[in-house]
């Protein structure tokens, strides 16, 4: 009967109820988006870091991978040392640079990744095959489009370009053997991958036996922290970065978004709370007579409160469910804006949907709905019956 009365009361003021639900829906959408934003980046980045199973990165001491132009010398020596650590399953060396491809009067420049195709963790082949021979490379869709080439073509490429004298250095002819989706590059970035030794040779003496960083994969069952410690002791001239450390760095750099998410999420929750509490207060004030009569005919105070709280909670619940759908749409839109964030891999989702986020948002809204209704309903149900009846009769 209480549910029936709550429902009937809400249905009686249809437009008011619908507007309140709409208001809660927008608040709920915003809240869901902010909950997704607060954890999405981190989880998305974690997933990205571990997508190929490499849990550790080794970079020049005091730097992060590709943060600077610094390189690690004696790369082959490092690989030898790491090979002696039994808990390590694979070591992927990576050298970064640029490749300039002449296309008639123009030059197409791409970011170049030199690596070992057998253990690389930077890309996935979508057409063709890995570049295993010295004079082979694979490229991203954006590069292939910009250069106007196809898989199977041979390119004239150089590692160095002097813009002032318009001369190339470290030039070679390379065969495009595959198209690849690069995991860690930004949107519309032109990227190529070729064998490490080829890129080192093209870059000249300065890059002999040098890499930008290593990716390391621990054996299944091995403790990543233990491997980290062993590497730090064995190769003290590098910084060993675990997934957690990398995530902390990301957290720090993108802390603005987490804080914004917290603030906007709180504001959304507050707005929803205010809306429901205002609605319940007005509703109670409007039917004070009905409420005290319910008490007069013997309905317990707690049940009167419960009935009114149910009204507020129902608005919150229905609004929250509508808001979940709306939130997914707005999240996609907001994600598309942030996807063009410079320097971040395109694969990063700022708004990552996880069911626990939806439950968290729903839970917060329901609790807010309950709390929003408690004070006005308790106040209404506690009015002195006789005095209120008299005032209602006079009014």
């Amino acid at each position, binding site marked *: 009967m209480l549910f029936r*009365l709550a429902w009937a009361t809400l249905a009686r003021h249809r437009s008011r109820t619908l507007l309140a639900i709409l208001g809660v829906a927008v608040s709920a959408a915003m809240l869901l988006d902010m909950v997704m934003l607060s954890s999405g980046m981190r989880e998305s980045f974690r997933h990205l870091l571990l997508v190929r199973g490499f849990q550790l990165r080794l970079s020049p001491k005091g730097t992060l991978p590709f943060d600077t132009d610094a390189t690690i010398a004696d790369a082959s020596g490092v690989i030898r040392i790491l090979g002696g650590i039994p808990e390590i399953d694979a070591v992927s060396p990576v050298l970064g640079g640029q490749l300039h491809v002449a296309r008639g009067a123009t030059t197409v420049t791409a970011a170049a990744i030199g690596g070992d195709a057998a253990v690389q963790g930077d890309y996935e082949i979508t057409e063709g095959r890995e570049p295993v021979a010295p004079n082979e490379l694979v490229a991203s869709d954006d590069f292939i489009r910009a250069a106007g080439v196809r898989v199977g073509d041979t390119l004239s490429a150089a590692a160095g370009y002097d813009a002032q004298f318009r001369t190339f250095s470290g030039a070679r002819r390379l065969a495009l053997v595959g198209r690849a989706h690069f995991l860690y590059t930004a949107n519309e970035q032109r990227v190529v991958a070729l064998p490490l030794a080829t890129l080192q040779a093209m870059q000249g003496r300065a890059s002999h036996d040098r890499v930008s960083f290593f990716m390391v994969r621990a054996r299944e069952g091995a403790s990543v922290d233990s491997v980290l410690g062993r590497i730090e002791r064995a190769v003290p001239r590098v910084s060993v970065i675990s997934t957690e450390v990398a995530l902390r760095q990301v957290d720090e750099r993108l802390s603005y978004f987490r804080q914004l998410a917290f603030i906007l999420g709180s504001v959304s929750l507050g707005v929803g709370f205010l809306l429901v509490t205002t609605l319940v207060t007005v509703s109670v004030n409007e039917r004070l007579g*009905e409420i005290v*009569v319910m008490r*007069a005919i*013997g309905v*317990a105070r707690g049940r009167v409160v419960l009935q009114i709280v149910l009204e507020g909670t129902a608005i919150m619940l229905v609004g929250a469910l509508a808001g979940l759908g709306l939130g997914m749409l707005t999240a996609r839109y907001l994600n598309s804006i942030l996807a063009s964030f410079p320097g971040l891999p395109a694969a990063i989702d700022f708004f990552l949907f996880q069911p626990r986020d939806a439950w968290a948002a729903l839970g917060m809204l329901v609790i807010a709905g309950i709390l929003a209704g408690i004070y006005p309903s308790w106040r209404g149900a506690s009015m002195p019956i*006789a005095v209120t009846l008299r005032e209602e009769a006079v009014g």
Partner: protein
Amino acid sequence: MSETPVVETRDVRRDYHMGEEIVHAVRGVSLEIARGDSVAIVGPSGCGKSTLLNLVGGIDRPTAGMVIVDGDRVDAMRDATATRFRLLRIGFVFQRFYLMPALSAAENVELPMAEAGMSGRKRAARARELLAYVGLAERRSHRPAQLSGGEQQRVAIARALANAPRILLADEPTGELDAKTGAEMIELLARVNRDGTTLVVVTHDEALARAARRVVHMRDGLVVDDHRQVGV
């Protein structure tokens, strides 16, 4: 009629603070109402008759004195106990009906039964029975806004009888009705009383007062006359 009073007030008083002034709404009223009786409490506006009714019904507490209803001291009950007491032992009818506008006539009648824990099926059956009793069997699905004043008051009476109370307290039940409808209401209340429910009515309506077996006159918070009517 049984000799044990169903309502007994002993020197009951009720004072209100209106700003700096104290209003003595009821100034020491001692009254006994026998089981099965019908009593009309009459008097000019502000004489304390509605206040006395509220004290008897437990929806107001006396400043002093005792109120005993059906053997229990209502004035000493905690709020939750008094509420439960009203639900099961007392029926209320108000001048302005106070039906739940969002519920149908049947649902309004079912409301006290639901609170008392009666099952859905039994509630529905009893609601049908009560609405038939008050002559509104065919209007059970109508909302209050779709009923006339007299019909609404009938629904209110059916609601008051939902849990088969010992006593029906009515505060100006014909106050918002025209003469013809008021007469129908008087007949219905008389029938309720004939069927065994003690009836206490506060009224300005002379016809309603004439229909009661006993009339209690109040003035300035005191009972000034109390007599049984001959031939009722």
